[in-house]
């Protein structure tokens, strides 16, 4: 009689991958998301939106951990994080 | 205790204020937000006693401004609602009376007029708020104001005020005066259904297709209330048919002209007055409220002196019965306008008579009704120099 408890979950834990979604036209360039992203994963993009603001974008190679604080702190409903969709690269 | 009937059909001996409250109840009013003020408190007191017993809500707010706002909120919550006040409170209610006009909110505002200005004679009669009723709030708008001359009419006209408020979607004024409010007379309350009670004009359009301020043919939009899933937006800002603020002169022209025209175009249905031997009279007396009854004695005395004297009693002060008076002006020798102020409705009369006959104001600064001889002298004088 083995005393080892059977593990509850059998499946291999899948590392969830996250990404940031931006609605550039809504952004007013307050840069709260960039400043308060715990991973410092955002930066102002080089393109301007039609109002002349620089929406945020993920820094090349940086990783978003899906904490969604950027969405919480955005006054313009212009950014949120969500599970990476599709190819899961 | 058996459930209290909401409509107390039968004969009563009621004060005007009390009859006014019962009129509201008959019309389906189930929310009263008010504030005590002589001589209108008795309306609130009656409502405070009766509404809780029939499933209604009575709340005494912290001031008249709050009362008017609560009445507007209750209307959007789905209840027919009213408030009652007098001069000082009426002044405080003006801004949100305007909000009710702009948002097309059906409700009733009763003003039991007392002598002003300011605190004036709180327990004594006045008729000095007639122009305030018309222009008291700011901006361009039309109003409906009904003037009862007796407790029975206080009942009937409050029912009519609710009907007009639902039919044309605006706050309707009942411009009483202290004497009518405080005098006690026989009041007959009809059986339920005997007097017409107009229900709210509800929209049957599905939420996504519904435009809260898209009017029907008579320029009045069907209404929904909060909690029905229509997620309406209602704003005091100039707005379009969706109810969204649109800060342009084009939106202003479209909206404000409709808000006014919905009263002007439907004038015939709204207007009401009473005529007694008015056509071809030597002298026509134009009066309203208690003064119309006070004028009856001098009118009869003048008739005994061989004069043909008519009475034209305003039941709707606003809109003013302009067409009728213009026509009568051509057939009468002179016009006498007694009112308990220094000239307000007389200006409307003069505008309509347009010089076709002399118009004589019989003024009174308030505190009591006219002395009959003052009105009689005016009638005789006008008859003499026609």
């Amino acid at each position, binding site marked *: 009689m083995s005393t080892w408890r059977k593990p509850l979950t059998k499946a291999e834990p899948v590392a969830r991958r996250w990404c940031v979604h931006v609605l550039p036209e809504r952004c007013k360039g307050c840069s709260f998301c960039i400043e308060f992203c715990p991973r410092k994963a955002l930066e102002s993009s080089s393109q301007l939106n039609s109002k002349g603001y620089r929406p945020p974008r993920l820094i090349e190679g940086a990783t978003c951990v899906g904490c969604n604080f950027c*969405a*919480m702190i955005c006054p313009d409903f212009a950014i949120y994080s969500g599970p990476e969709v599709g190819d899961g690269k | 205790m058996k459930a209290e009937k909401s409509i107390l059909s039968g004969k009563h001996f009621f004060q005007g204020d009390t009859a006014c409250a019962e009129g509201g109840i008959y019309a389906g009013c189930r929310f009263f937000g008010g504030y005590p003020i002589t001589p209108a408190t008795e309306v609130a007191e009656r409502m405070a006693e009766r509404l809780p017993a029939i*499933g209604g809500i009575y*709340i005494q707010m912290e001031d008249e401004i709050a009362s008017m*706002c609560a009445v507007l*909120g209750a209307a959007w919550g789905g209840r027919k609602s009213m408030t009652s006040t007098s001069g000082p409170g009426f002044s405080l209610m003006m801004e949100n009376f305007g909000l009710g006009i702009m948002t097309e909110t059906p409700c009733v505002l009763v003003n039991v007029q007392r002598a002003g200005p300011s605190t004036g004679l709180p327990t004594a009669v006045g008729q000095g708020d007639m122009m305030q009723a018309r222009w008291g709030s700011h901006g361009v708008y039309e109003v409906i104001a009904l003037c009862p001359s007796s407790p029975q009419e206080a009942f009937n006209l409050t029912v009519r005020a609710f009907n007009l408020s639902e039919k044309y979607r605006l706050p309707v004024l009942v411009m009483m005066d202290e004497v009518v409010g405080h005098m006690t007379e026989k009041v007959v309350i009809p059986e339920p259904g005997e007097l017409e009670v107009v229900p709210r004009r509800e929209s049957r359009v599905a939420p996504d297709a519904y435009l809260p301020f898209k009017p029907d043919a008579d320029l009045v939009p069907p209404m929904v209330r909060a909690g029905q*899933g229509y997620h309406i937006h209602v704003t005091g800002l100039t707005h379009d048919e969706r109810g969204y603020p649109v800060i342009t002169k084009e939106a202003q022209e479209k909206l404000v002209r409709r808000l006014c025209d919905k009263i002007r175009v439907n004038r015939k249905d709204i207007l009401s007055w009473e005529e007694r031997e008015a056509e071809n009279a030597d002298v026509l007396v134009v009066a309203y409220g208690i003064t119309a009854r006070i004028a009856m004695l001098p009118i009869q005395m003048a008739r005994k002196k061989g004069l043909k004297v008519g009475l034209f009693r305003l039941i709707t002060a606003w809109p003013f019965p302009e067409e009728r008076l213009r026509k009568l002006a051509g057939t009468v020798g002179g016009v006498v306008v007694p009112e308990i102020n220094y000239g307000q409705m007389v200006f409307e009369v003069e505008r309509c008579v347009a010089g076709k006959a002399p118009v004589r104001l019989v003024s009174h600064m308030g505190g009591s009704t006219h002395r009959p001889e003052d009105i009689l002298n005016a009638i005789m004088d006008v008859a003499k120099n026609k």
Partner: protein
Amino acid sequence: MEMKETHPIDDLIRTDRIPHIWCSGCGIGIAVHCFLNAIRKSGIPPKNFAVVSGIGCSGRVAGYVKLDSFHTTHGRPIPFAVGLKLANDRLKVVVFSGDGDLIAIGGNHFIHAARRNVDITVICVNNFNYGMTGGQAAPTTPVRARTSTTPYGNFEFPFNLAYLAAGSGAVYVSRWTTLHAKQLEDSMLEALGKKGFTFVEAISPCPTLYNRMNKLGTALDFMKFCKEHSVIRHGADPKTANIDLRGDIVVGRFVNVERPTFTDFLEEGLAQGLPHRKALLDEERKEFEHE
């Protein structure tokens, strides 16, 4: 990185009116986002909500939320909300307005609704001045602050809104800055879940006016200040929960007590004298229910 066109909160927003009117970096949008998330988590169907706003920057909130919303006159959202709530008890009525609107011209209604413990939630975005009209002093403007109407400095003592609400009878009082988006949302959720007069104050940057006139830097600087200088003191006596824009901002949930609401207390009292009233009200509630 995808350029999306919709945001998860969009079904509760009038997206046809976005981008909204508020300045870049203003905190009102954050408060709205927190509020709409709280609605979603409350489990109460959105159609039962009614939002009432007054006049001012925060007064425009009613125009952006996809709920039954009423944009009333200056200082008067609370009495309007009281009428709305009493007329249909099933509605979840939320007043969402600014410090000037609720506490200056609307102050009398604020203290009375709290005294009566009417079952409404009041969310006050406090940016320490009248923003919409160009940055005038308000009853929340700190001493010596510059505004367009205190060019020589403000020499009046501001209200402590939490203390005022608690003192007037509110059963729930909390204050967060708009940087504390997580706590602000949770606090709104708590307020929405609690019966009675519940009050949530959200301290917001006002970059264009108040911050600029008082050299408090950009909106981002103000948010950094909030991050460095906010002191969380749950249960603190509201009297001591001060706001010092040169020192600390005391935030947290200060009051969370029980008291019968206006309607419950009234109905309980009326039931004694009017036994049939309850049946009448239940019948009416059913009528609202079947919608």
